[in-house]
């Protein structure tokens, strides 16, 4: 199987025998999960084939050529899967992994809190040990898909006398219980992409902790590292123009999964629309408008090239580290500048919202969505700290949150 051609042939053979575009989605995925071709890099014991990244790419190629649907791969479910695979007990893997991959169970991430946004480790949702497990009280926020989710990845504080990073534990929470209350959270742009989740004596039995007590921060790092990698996956989740009833199921699944993200392109400023809009409005002739458009396009193109340089360096074996923060910061700058350029181009039409407004409401949505980009996923200020400290090696901020968490000043 080390020969790439043999590998491709094996996959092709397997697909020829098993792939059916009119199969039921879950049935097909069950078959796929059992075969190991669904997660080629995973160990053979857990629905995988232990292949290298390069080999896995070849497998995915063959799947793509055949138009064969893969395992449920997007959203927090994927994060749950990789985190459980890395830190879970055999019992936990047995219980959860398969149904994540088949798409039968949706998951959500329960990390951020109203009082700990930039400061994730400052979580104050409490898990108190009781006879048969843990009692959970507190509140989480920014939980995408929590209103659909069967399970949640919960970080909660189990020890208030340890320093803040050490007193956290990581739980697999059954969302389907009375003590868990999910409320959709509307944003200023009218979308409701997130939830608040309230815990009132919610219950988690023993055996549903991931890692050891106090490992919460360490385990959460696995989830967060994979979250950053997800951006790319999400972009490729559309299923194309294939024929077969299974695609309809995938489309519906994607629709639910992607619903929270429809405004994300607007959040990024829609640089792609600048010239088009300026041409339509005639403002493209205005030397001042031309300057502003050029400035944005220069920033945007440069940011793309920086990303390509980072990827190329990575492919040459140099590790990509906190340079990701550079890209995030650049994206903020681009989005803000693009929104200002759109305002300049659109003029008084920027007074409107909804379908009456320019580009079917897209321009209005840009203006009220861009403020999110410099906050979500770590504020610009946090990114600058990361760049200065980890890339440039400058002295760290002095810390005021060491010592027992009980004594740390907080909201």
């Amino acid at each position, binding site marked *: 199987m080390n020969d790439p051609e043999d590998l491709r042939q094996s996959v092709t053979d397997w697909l020829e025998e098993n792939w059916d575009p009119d199969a039921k989605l879950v049935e097909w995925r069950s078959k796929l999960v059992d075969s190991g071709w669904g997660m080629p890099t995973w160990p053979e014991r857990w629905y995988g084939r232990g292949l290298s990244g390069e080999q896995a790419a070849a497998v995915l190629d063959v799947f793509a050529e055949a138009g064969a649907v893969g395992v449920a791969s997007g959203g927090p479910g994927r994060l749950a899967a990789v985190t459980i695979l890395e830190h879970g007990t055999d019992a936990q893997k047995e219980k959860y992994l398969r149904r994540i991959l088949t798409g039968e169970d949706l998951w959500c991430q329960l990390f*951020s809190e*109203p*009082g*700990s*946004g*930039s*400061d994730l480790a*400052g979580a104050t949702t409490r898990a108190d040990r009781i006879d048969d497990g843990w009692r959970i009280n507190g509140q989480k*926020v*920014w939980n995408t898909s929590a209103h659909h989710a069967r399970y949640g990845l919960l970080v909660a504080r189990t020890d208030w006398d340890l320093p803040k990073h050490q007193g956290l534990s990581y739980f697999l929470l059954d969302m389907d219980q009375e003590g868990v209350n999910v409320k959709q*959270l*509307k*944003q*200023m742009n*009218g979308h409701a992409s997130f939830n608040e989740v309230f815990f009132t004596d919610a219950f988690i039995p023993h055996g549903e902790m991931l890692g050891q007590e106090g490992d919460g921060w360490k385990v959460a790092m696995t989830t967060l590292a994979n979250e950053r990698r997800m951006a790319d996956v999400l972009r490729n989740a559309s299923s194309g123009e294939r024929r077969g009833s299974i695609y309809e199921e995938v489309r519906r699944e994607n629709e639910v999964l992607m619903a929270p993200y429809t405004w994300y392109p607007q959040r990024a400023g829609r640089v792609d629309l600048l010239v088009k809009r300026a041409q339509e409005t005639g403002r493209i002739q205005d030397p*001042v408008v031309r300057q502003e458009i050029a400035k944005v396009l220069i920033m945007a193109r440069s940011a793309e090239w920086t990303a390509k340089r980072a990827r190329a360096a990575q492919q040459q074996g140099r590790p990509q580290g906190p340079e990701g923060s550079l890209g995030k910061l650049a994206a903020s700058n681009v989005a*803000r500048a693009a929104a200002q350029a759109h*305002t*300049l181009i*659109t*003029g*008084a*039409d*920027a*007074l*409107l*919202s*909804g*379908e*009456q*407004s320019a580009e079917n409401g897209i321009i*209005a949505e840009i*203006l*009220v969505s861009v*403020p*999110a980009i*410099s*906050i*979500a996923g770590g*504020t*610009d*200020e946090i990114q*600058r700290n990361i760049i200065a400290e980890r890339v440039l090696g400058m002295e760290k*901020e002095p*810390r*005021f*949150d*060491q010592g027992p968490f009980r004594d*740390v*000043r*907080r*909201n």
Partner: protein
Amino acid sequence: MQFTFTEEQEQFRDMVRRFALEQSPASTVRRLMATDEGFEPALWEQLSRQLGLTALRIPEPYGGSGFSAVELGIVMEEFGRTLLCAPYFSSAVLSTEVILAAGTETDRSALLPGLADGSRRAAFAFTEVSGSRAVDEIDTRATTDGNGRWQVSGSKRFVIDGHTADCLIVTARADDDVGLFLVEDDAGGLLRRPLVTMDATRKLADVDFDGTPAIRIGGPGDCREQIEAALDAASVALAGEMIGGAQTLLDSAVAYAKMRVQFGRTIGSFQAIKHKCADMLLDVESARSAVYAAAGAAAGNHPEAPALACLAKAAASEAYVRTAAETIQIHGGIGFTWENDTHLWFKRAKSSEVLLGDPTWHREKLMQRWGY
């Protein structure tokens, strides 16, 4: 120009501020912005009949109190602080200013008393499809039967409170002149369509005229200059509203930064936030200076007044928008939610930025008015 306020003006400001704070909490703003009309008759009654704020700029012979741009600026600034929802800007500023600038004695006697006591609310329809406020780009046409009866045909956009006003003052071409025409809300051939606005606290409408009966005001000649003057006055007033809003945002950002703790410190103790707030203060204070200077110049009929109207509007627009964006940033995720009030001001900032001309437009006009 004046750089301080008199004792009386300070007392007046206190009165208006108390009124706005009491009558226009965010909960009321949220309730009213969800309605089509966007205001409450009771509050209108209060600010017009009881407090006389609608009469502010109107001379005493017409039922007003004859105050200047400085007092109007005070009202707008304080209303801007709380986003007070009322057709004040459309009726007591835009419409009143254009009648003050262009109206004949007859027009003034006929129209100002009603605007002064708030019993009539007017809207000023001056923007064409291009979205420009430029008086040379008016396509709406007025024709007459020669007996003083006029008909207006054309379309006006973004008419503030255009769908709820009792009457509309419309700019239209009559032969080569640009004239002003009064259209009643029940006139034939009048179609008013409320718009879905980004800033739901300020209601706009598109208005179509199709042979709509109208009365000509402002006399028979060209009124371009007077219209410009009214829009300048309105720009200064709007700039006043904007610094009021920017101040509210700044206050809220600073208060939040002092209270919010992350990493065991208030976020306001981090230089990233601290320096942002310092820059915001400089921004707001600079714009405030520009607005006060422009209002003072207008009140004193200073020759530089038209230029300073542009300067103030440009300065206030930039400061308000920047302050709004930074206030959201300082609040973090919560600042981007619907529940948090910041977005109400953010949207007002964005809508005010382009209303009556965006900063780029005003800077170019400023250079022209300075003679460069």
